[in-house]
């Protein structure tokens, strides 16, 4: 018995929403990066599901690229957090509010 495609897509959407909520609501730098990772992995799940549904590999190939790119993005993000921590002694992003309109 196979699980219908819809279930996977619903799960991916839910994960995406959880990740987005994490980015928007959390104030800790690392939690925000985690939120972005959850969003990207939700996309990976959706891509793998659709690849299986269509019976071609395009989606699965894209998953690998997403993983690699996500790793690069987090590497830059963590490096920035280190620089921010050196400056502010904290990675609470509410401290990063010097600029206002």
């Amino acid at each position, binding site marked *: 018995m196979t699980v219908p495609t819809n279930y996977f*897509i619903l799960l991916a959407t839910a994960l995406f929403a959880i990740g987005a909520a994490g*980015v928007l609501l959390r104030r800790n730098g690392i939690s925000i990066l985690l939120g972005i990772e959850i969003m990207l992995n939700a996309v990976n799940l959706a891509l793998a599901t659709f690849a299986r549904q269509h019976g071609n590999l395009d989606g699965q190939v894209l998953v690998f*690229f997403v993983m690699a790119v996500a790793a690069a993005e987090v590497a830059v*993000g963590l490096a920035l957090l280190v620089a921010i921590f050196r400056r502010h002694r904290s990675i609470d992003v509410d401290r990063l509010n010097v600029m206002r*309109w």
Partner: protein
Amino acid sequence: MPINDLATILPELLLVLVGALLALADSLAPSLRPRFALLAAVAVAGATVLRWAIPLPGRVWGGVLLVDPMARFVDSYILAALFLCALLAEPYLARTGARFGEFYALLLWAGVGAMVMAKSDNLLVIFVGLELLSISLYALNAFHTGNVLSLEAGWKYLVVGGFSAAVLLFGVALLYGATGTLSLASTPAPSAPLASGGSLLLTGLGLVFAGLAFKLALAPFHAWAPDVYQGSPTPVTAFLSVVPKGAALVVLARLVAALLPLAALPRWTGLLAAVAVLSMTLGNLVAIAQRDLKRMLAYSGIAHMGYALVGLVAFGQDGVAAVLVYLAAYTLMNIAAFAVVSAFSEGEEEPHLITDLAGQGWVRPGLSFALAVAMFSLAGIPPTVGFAAKFLVFRAAVLNDLVWLAVVGVLNSLVSVFFYVRVVYYLYMRPLPKRQPQFSEPVLVRLVAGLCAVGIFLLGLLPGIVLAGAEVAARTLPR
């Protein structure tokens, strides 16, 4: 096919290699540091020559890349922006003590990412190009690691960029689900029944549009722009304000052209038109309230992307050609403005106040004149290129029965004249204050500002030069 696939991406390969060499040379031969800008600029010039020397075979690399007149047009202006920003960066980095090879390496790689985006016909390649551009820019934005504002700008751009990339990617996944392919060219014919109905396609398209709108700083997705513009090193701001936007607009044009027959046309156009109106209005109204020149230019950029989007709403050949001309014009005037801003040489954490320009018109005639020209061009006053570009965009809207959109655009231009001309007013009609802010006038900055000012007048008087190229480029889009 007579031409080797590898030869079609020689310009990109050259820039990637030179970027890597510069990053290496920074640690192996630090005495070369003052020459890095020159090396980067020469590489960019070489890439431009290569791009024009190589024939345009069209679809290469198994149909993933489209090396067509459109790609060449966009590449040319990305390379021009790279060239000007590399020259602009040298005195700036020397002054702020951050003259490292990585800066130019990241700048060149970001340019390559934009060039890949502009010629890709596959959602995977678009994503990879976008991320190459974005990740390089995250690091560039935070290049002054000792500066609170630069760190803040880098972090904000990273979070917004990562978020928008994820949104775009979710849209890509849904588009893939609806069509079963990542290639734009092989999307099913309009008559073919879609497996899961049009809603999946429309949602996907909406999410991809939202992801690109973040990059374009269009109105509901613009909140990052002023902070990032203000905090980033000024040459990076100049780059950031033109290149990613151009690449994203071209991707949007290709996407719309490929998926238009599939999507329900009226709803899609309505969405684009609404975003364009919102961007123009919000950008112009909030720009009036700005006291910092960089923040004002950020809001002006939001408004300008709204104008450019009008051309995309109109679509058709004249619409796309108008957008391409708009991008070229926007590049010239924005880089001219930021070149002058980068000559402000007080601490980087100080705001770049418009009032600090008071009376400078008579003390520093060259730079002030370039800034005034850029402001008149941004406001769309003839005989500058800003006028020609706006005219073409609004003409395309009128020709495609979108008169109301053209009227909104013209009214917005009127509003914008106020805050652009205010800068010129401060330059020439205010007395010098007692405590004068410090300015530096390096030769390279004057050269870049001068080149841009000449370009603004030349293309303003003879818009046919760039329009002819843009029309050839627009013809390659399927419709």
